[in-house]
């Protein structure tokens, strides 16, 4: 996954403010947060010299099949439902400390980002995911705890 700095490198870096943000860096941050899309930068979209970067950025943010709003993909064929990600996911722990946070069955399922169903992890309630929204962070709690690389963010 990219960070805001990498995105910034692909922007015009003119701080023209046509996107409504104060600077290209601010635009990059808004892109990261999925608050704005690449096409919200008029020069990037229109000027031929940015064509390559525009296409690259667009493909980065193109919602590919099966991905969720946070870009979280579960490779169901790899997952075997160990639940490591469910227990390690910070919002899961915060929202259900004595259930999944303590390794047990969910007690507050409607606020969980990850839960195991029929032996495979399911992503849900992505509004709670730390990679979602304005204050998103590049949390990787579910990735580093997975024994089979069944979760990735695209």
């Amino acid at each position, binding site marked *: 996954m990219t960070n805001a700095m990498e995105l910034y490198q692909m922007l015009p870096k003119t701080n023209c403010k046509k996107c409504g943000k104060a600077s290209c860096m601010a635009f990059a941050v808004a892109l990261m947060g999925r608050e704005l899309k690449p096409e919200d930068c008029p020069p990037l979209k229109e000027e031929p010299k940015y064509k390559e970067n525009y296409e690259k950025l667009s493909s980065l943010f193109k919602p590919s099949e099966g991905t969720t709003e946070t870009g979280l993909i579960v490779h169901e064929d790899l*997952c*075997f*439902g*160990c*639940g*490591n990600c*469910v*227990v*390690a996911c910070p919002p899961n*722990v915060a929202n259900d*400390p004595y259930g999944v*946070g*303590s*390794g*047990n*069955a*969910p007690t507050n399922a409607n606020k969980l980002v990850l*839960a*195991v*169903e*029929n*032996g*495979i992890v399911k992503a849900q309630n992505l509004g709670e995911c730390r990679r979602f929204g304005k204050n998103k962070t590049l949390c990787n709690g579910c990735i580093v*705890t997975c*024994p*089979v690389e069944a979760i990735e963010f695209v």
Partner: protein
Amino acid sequence: MEKNYHVCTGCGLLCDDIEVEAEKNIINKVLTACRIGVAHMKEGKGEAIFRVDNKPVDEAVAISEAATILKNAKNPLIFGLGASTNETQKIAIELAKKINATLDDTSSFCLGSLVEAIIREKIKTCTLDEVRNKADVIIFWGTDPSDSHPRHLSKYSYFPRGKEKQRGWEEERTAIAVDVRKSHTAKICGNYFFQIPPKGDAEFIDALIAGLSGKLPKTSYNYPPKKILELANILKGAKFGVIFAGRGLVNSLENLEPIFRLMKALNEKANFHLMPMVGSCNTMGFNENLFAETGYVNSVKFENGTVLHGPEYSIVESLKAKTVDAALIIGSDPFSILPGSIVKNLLEIPVVSIDSYETLTSRNSKVYINTAVSGVEAGGTATRMDRKKVSFEPFIETNHPSEETILKKIMEAL
């Protein structure tokens, strides 16, 4: 909201927090269980099968044929029971006494020696709940719970918050893997994976013991001493350490002495516990029940009220030496777990197979009785890998008889 949780009897963890949605005896949805658990719960299917000489018969004929085989045998073998309830196991022990049988389970070639040391209190152990609440240094040695006990790390040993472990796994726990290959568990342990050559465990233990007392750790396979010293330092700092020992460790040692030495050395510097990674859902129960009855955990022969014990009464040696002349195999498939060169001798004697599903053993048996799946279609109690008793009710109706019922009927028919 009060939820109705079920126990999963898919492995030795006996997870007790599984939600199942079923309609008309068909399981629609299983929550929180791993893939093994789900496959296990969906295992039971179809009509009950009773077979004699590969021909379908009714239950009474199968029972009577099984009883005849056992009655006519001079030294029948009873084997399996690792997935049976404590109640079934106790009946099997009674049956073995009655027919002067040799009685054994998989622990004789797996972790039995270590389990016996735990039961005899020769090694300090603890419960899984204590591990969750307190453990700060966790070693997986010759075991890959990610594949064998999938929720081990998430429910108890690494990731959950516990009473004295509130800040989470990154800050408060160190997980270490010692293994001959980079297993899924070893992968999670990252830099704390110590890869040793096959049969290199005993040497690694002694090198580690040297490291614990500040000596230079040496191995014939030139394991970097610096890494061993680094490991020794982590272990020395453990406030509540636990070693989960698997077959990879036990099968590579000649005897348990290296483990005893290591535990002694560790407990001189820190606080360490050990737990065998018992595989089947009630192998621990079998070992405990047989121990309570005979003073041994496996490999016994009953003879007119006395008990003989020794490796010669293990399934491996008794098949190899052809000392047994019939076999009653309950919930186990020796053809999938024992060396072909030994297990082929089963083909020469009459076998009664009692199992909840078709196996190589059931296909090669004279009598096959297809039973209910314990923990899904039949209730009872089982003993978790940390010796905690867990009881469960059936949640799927079945027309398959339980193992317990079948063993009782065989007893009566004798």
